[in-house]
C-alpha cells in the first residue's frame, strides 16, 4: 500500500479551493490549500508535498511567479506543478511551460481528468 499523495492547491477563489478540496479528498488525497503564490511559498518552505496545483491569476504572487520561484530553488525543482486556470491563450500556456510547469488544465475542471492527471504526475 503506497502512502497518501499530498497536494497543495493554490487559488485565490475560496469557492474554487472548496471545489478542488472536495474533488481531491474524496479520492483519498491529502489536500492543503493556499490563497496566493506568497502563501504557497511560505507553506512549501516548511512542508512536504507531492504535487502542486496552481491558478494563474492571483494577487501578490501569481502562478507564473510561483512556478519560477519554485524552479529557482533546490527544494521543489522537480516537483510536479499543474496549472489550473480560466486562461485559454496559447501565449499564457507557453509562458507556463517555459516557467517550468508540468501540465496545463483549463477550467472548468473535470474531477476525473484532474485526478487522473495528479496520479500520473505524482509517481
Amino acid at each position: 500500500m503506497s502512502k497518501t499523495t499530498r497536494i497543495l492547491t493554490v487559488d485565490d477563489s475560496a469557492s474554487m479551493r472548496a471545489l478542488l478540496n472536495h474533488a481531491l479528498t474524496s479520492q483519498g488525497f491529502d489536500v492543503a490549500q493556499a490563497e496566493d503564490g506568497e502563501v504557497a511559498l511560505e507553506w512549501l518552505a516548511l512542508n512536504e508535498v507531492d504535487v502542486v496545483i496552481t491558478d494563474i491569476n492571483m494577487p501578490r504572487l501569481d502562478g507564473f511567479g510561483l512556478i519560477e520561484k519554485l524552479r529557482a530553488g533546490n527544494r521543489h525543482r522537480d516537483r510536479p506543478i499543474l496549472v489550473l486556470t480560466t486562461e485559454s491563450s496559447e501565449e499564457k500556456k507557453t509562458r507556463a511551460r517555459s516557467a517550468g510547469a508540468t501540465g496545463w488544465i483549463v477550467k472548468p475542471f473535470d474531477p476525473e481528468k484532474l485526478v487522473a492527471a495528479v496520479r500520473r504526475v505524482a509517481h
Partner: protein
Amino acid sequence: MSFEAPFSATAMTRINILQGQARVSAGPRVEFSTVLGSCVATCLFDPDIQIGGMNHFLLAEPPPGASTGDFDEHYGVYLMELLINEMLANGAAKSRLRAHLYGGANLNAGLARIGTKNAAFAHSFLASERITVVREDLGGNNARRIDFRPAHGQVRCRTVENTLVADTRPTPRPSLSRGDVELF
C-alpha cells in the same frame, strides 16, 4: 451603484449577454442587457475606476449517475471566476467590487428548484469571496430584463413576459471541451 443620471437610451451600444457568457467594459456608452428566467446574472462594479461586468449562468446538471448533489457548481464557479478575473485584469480591485444579483425565478413547476438553486449558489459564492451584494432582485415567478451600464454601475431591472426568456435548460457540464489535461 445608483440611478444618479437619467437612464436615457441615446447612442448606447447594447451588448446582449447570453447564458454562459461573462463580459467586462469601461465604455461610457456601453450597456449590457440580458433576459433572465431561472438563470442568474451577476453585475460587478468597481466605483473607483468606473468599470463593470456581467455574467449570466444556469447551474449545470451533474453527469448521469454522479452523486455530487442536485446541481453541479463547477460551471457557476467558472463563470463567476471568469467575470472576476476579467475585472481584475482591467484594473479592478476585489475588495472594491460591489455586486448586484438578478434572476433565479421559478417560471414553472417543472423547473421549480432551478431558479432557487441558482440564486442560493450566487449568494454563497459571493459571501465566500467576501464581495458585498448591494442590490438584488431574485426569485419569484416572473422573467426579468436587466440593463446594466458597466462604466456607471447603473442597473435597471424590469419584469417582462415569461415568453421572452430563451429556452433555458440546465446545460450538461462542458467537460468534453474543458478540463482537458495537457502534460508538457
